[in-house]
């Protein structure tokens, strides 16, 4: 198998892993954690900590 094909397979596997992580994270409630942080003024971010 030439190197181009191998790197394409690895790239696709990495993408599937990344997308799988997004879906898993979403269904396990991480997006809600992100949401609840992002919809409240972040005192640390703005320097009122």
């Amino acid at each position: 198998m030439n190197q181009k094909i191998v790197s394409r397979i690895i790239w696709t596997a990495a993408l599937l892993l990344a997308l799988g992580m997004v879906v898993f994270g979403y269904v396990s409630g991480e997006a809600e954690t992100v949401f609840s942080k992002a919809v409240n003024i972040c005192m640390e971010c703005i320097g009122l900590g």
Partner: protein
Amino acid sequence: MDKKHGSKLRKIIQICWGVLTNAYVKGFIAGSSTIYTGPLKHFCVPGMNCYSCPGALGACPIGALQAVLNSRHRKFPFYVIGFLMTIGLFLGRFVCGWLCVFGLIQELLYMIPTPKLKIPERVDKVLRNMKYVMLLVMVIALPLLYRNEYGAAKPFFCEFVCPVGTLEGGIPLVLLNDQLRPALGSLFIFKTAILTVCILASIFIYRPFCKYLCPLGAFYALFQKVSLVKLDVDKSACVNCGACARKCAMNVDPSKTPNSTECIRCGECLKSCPTNALRFTCAGKKIGNKTNIGETKNEEEGN
């Protein structure tokens, strides 16, 4: 990509992206200023963009990463890391050159006509590693390990470093809301000092925050060699004149390391190449039409 219009196109895309992702106009109305609280805040934007910016429609990926690490169960942040990996696999640091508001702000500051500062190569090399330290220590390790006596964690990078939060969130919110002003204290002064240094440095050094401090740029840099969008050198056309390396404000020599972790895919080097040896590629396929580019060059030279 047309050489003559490449920079203009990039600026237009940077500005449009900045406006589009910070389009919550209500947030900027004095007195009633509040941040956007709609469903888009479930999702991260690819570049640095504070989610406490009054106009922000999405979440900042670095803030989001720390928020998940800080949560009570100290979960592995699958959602945010998966998102960043996806963007990295497609674009790498193309995001920095085209889709980051703070990158754009630094570029605009650098356009102020003053003598520019050249950091000695050895110092520059050491400083460039600081962004990886920021990612590993301030974004990941400290938020993961530290808990105060009440069990609460801190987003260390956001709280003690991030000038983006101060510029996009802190200053506008404090200006627009009287109620926040009594809360100003030493942390705000400290963060404003960091922001001031970044702003002043940006006038004399090209994108100092991106080169030396940005943890998001550090993360995307890890994907630079495998991302779909790449820079490619036609070795048979390259005459080793060094024009591209002299042009690159990120101090990359694209003729030798086209996929350097420091390249933000701005495309400036393409314009300087006298033989059109440099090309952007996407999944190995060239982007743009070589014949058109040659014609543009001839027109510019008045041929």
